[in-house]
């Protein structure tokens, strides 16, 4: 039986935005921790660490996000965690974000001039304080714009979690469409909502980039 697209359907889709945001927030927070560790491993003096991080990054850059979701989803099932789309989507997107942020931030750390580290070494400042007080604060300024840019990709990427049954924005759209058979309205609304989430972030990224360019030209 076909339902008309009414206010109930509208609000069902709009309310699903919170799950897209929640999944994005979890993946971004987890990815920030994992990405920092990955980036530090990539620039570390220890060869095994560097190669392990590089392998991790290459693996996640070289496979589709959808396959990563499938592998984690079915993998967790094999290890007896049962079918848990929330957990699977969080884990897969966190790993995905860790790899990409790790590579972005590696570049930012390496963009800090070598002289900064040499000054620390000459003063006897150790690894931890060198990173925390000197290198990372300077890398962070460079990292803001590309990080916000990646966050936009990540938010759109959460739509793939719909395929393993996680009810976020895209999945809510599919559910409503199955009942209303009004795909143009339904997915038009879904796309508009993604746009409302991502557009301001894109503008922000552009502004930050310009501000950084100005600051470093000084």
């Amino acid at each position, binding site marked *: 039986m076909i339902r008309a697209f009414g206010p109930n359907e509208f609000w069902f889709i709009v309310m699903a935005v919170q799950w897209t945001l929640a999944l994005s927030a979890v993946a971004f927070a987890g990815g920030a921790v994992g990405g920092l560790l990955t980036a530090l491993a990539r620039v570390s003096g220890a060869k095994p660490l560097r190669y392990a991080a590089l392998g991790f990054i290459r693996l996640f850059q070289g496979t589709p996000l959808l396959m990563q979701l499938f592998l984690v989803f079915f993998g967790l099932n094999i290890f007896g965690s049962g079918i848990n789309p929330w957990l699977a989507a969080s884990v897969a997107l966190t790993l995905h974000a860790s790899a990409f942020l790790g590579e972005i931030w590696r570049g930012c750390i390496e963009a800090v001039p070598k002289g900064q580290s040499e000054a620390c070494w000459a003063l*006897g400042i150790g690894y931890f304080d060198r990173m925390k007080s*000197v290198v990372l604060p300077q890398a962070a300024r460079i990292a803001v714009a590309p990080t916000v840019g990646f966050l936009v990709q990540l938010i759109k990427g959460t739509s793939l979690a719909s395929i393993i049954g996680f009810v976020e924005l895209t999945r809510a759209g599919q559910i409503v469409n199955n009942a209303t058979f009004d795909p143009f309205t339904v997915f038009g609304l879904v796309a508009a909502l993604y746009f409302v989430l991502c557009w301001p972030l894109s503008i922000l990224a552009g502004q930050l980039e310009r501000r950084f360019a100005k600051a470093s030209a000084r």
Partner: protein
Amino acid sequence: MSANPGADGADAPAVRMEGVEKWYGTYHALKNVDLEVASGERIVVCGPSGSGKSTLIRCINQLEVVQKGRIVVDGIELTAGHKNVDKVRRDVGMVFQQFNLFPHMTVLENCMLAPLKVRRAAKAEAEATARKYLERVRIPEQADKYPAQLSGGQQQRVAIARALCMNPRIMLFDEPTSALDPEMVKEVLDTMIDLAGEGMTMLVVTHEMGFARQVADRVIFMDQGEIVEMAGPEEFFSRPKHERTRTFLGQIAH
């Protein structure tokens, strides 16, 4: 060699290098370098670019790792492990051609970072030390500015103050005036002359031959990774023994 740094008194050499060899890949940067620097001595190192003079002083605080030979700094054997490297770096200050100040910190914070993190100094004490040395390099009024707001000469003086805040026993200068506009060279050299007057052990890589004449106890000329000539400034400038030294002095005379 005493295992206890400083215990053997003022007679122990500040720096001793024996048979030091350094390669960058196949490029032979230092060839069998022997050098002994007494405590309180001022050494000026000169030579054409690529002669190994920067590499030489960067070995003293292990910014460059050598492949062969012995380096002993202040009685501490550098080639014997990481712990010793940290110890040496705490007591050896360095000033770089490009200043290498921390751009995201104020002048005062630049000077306080190492005492706070490495010496575990109290904040008030670190600040007092920083202000004292900023006074010494004659820019106490710039303490709350950021490096980018200062002239090159002022930045280099901050870099000298930052190194002095660790109370080093040896100071290394790696072409400290080469990146400066000509009118700022003097203020940095004057600061270094003051420091020499206070008895600091100094190794200075520079092309400022006026400074060498005035301050150096010995001048070293390096070429192609070797110490070619080493003499007091009077003898070095008026009676250089080696042809290569004469050629070099002739080139930079104008």
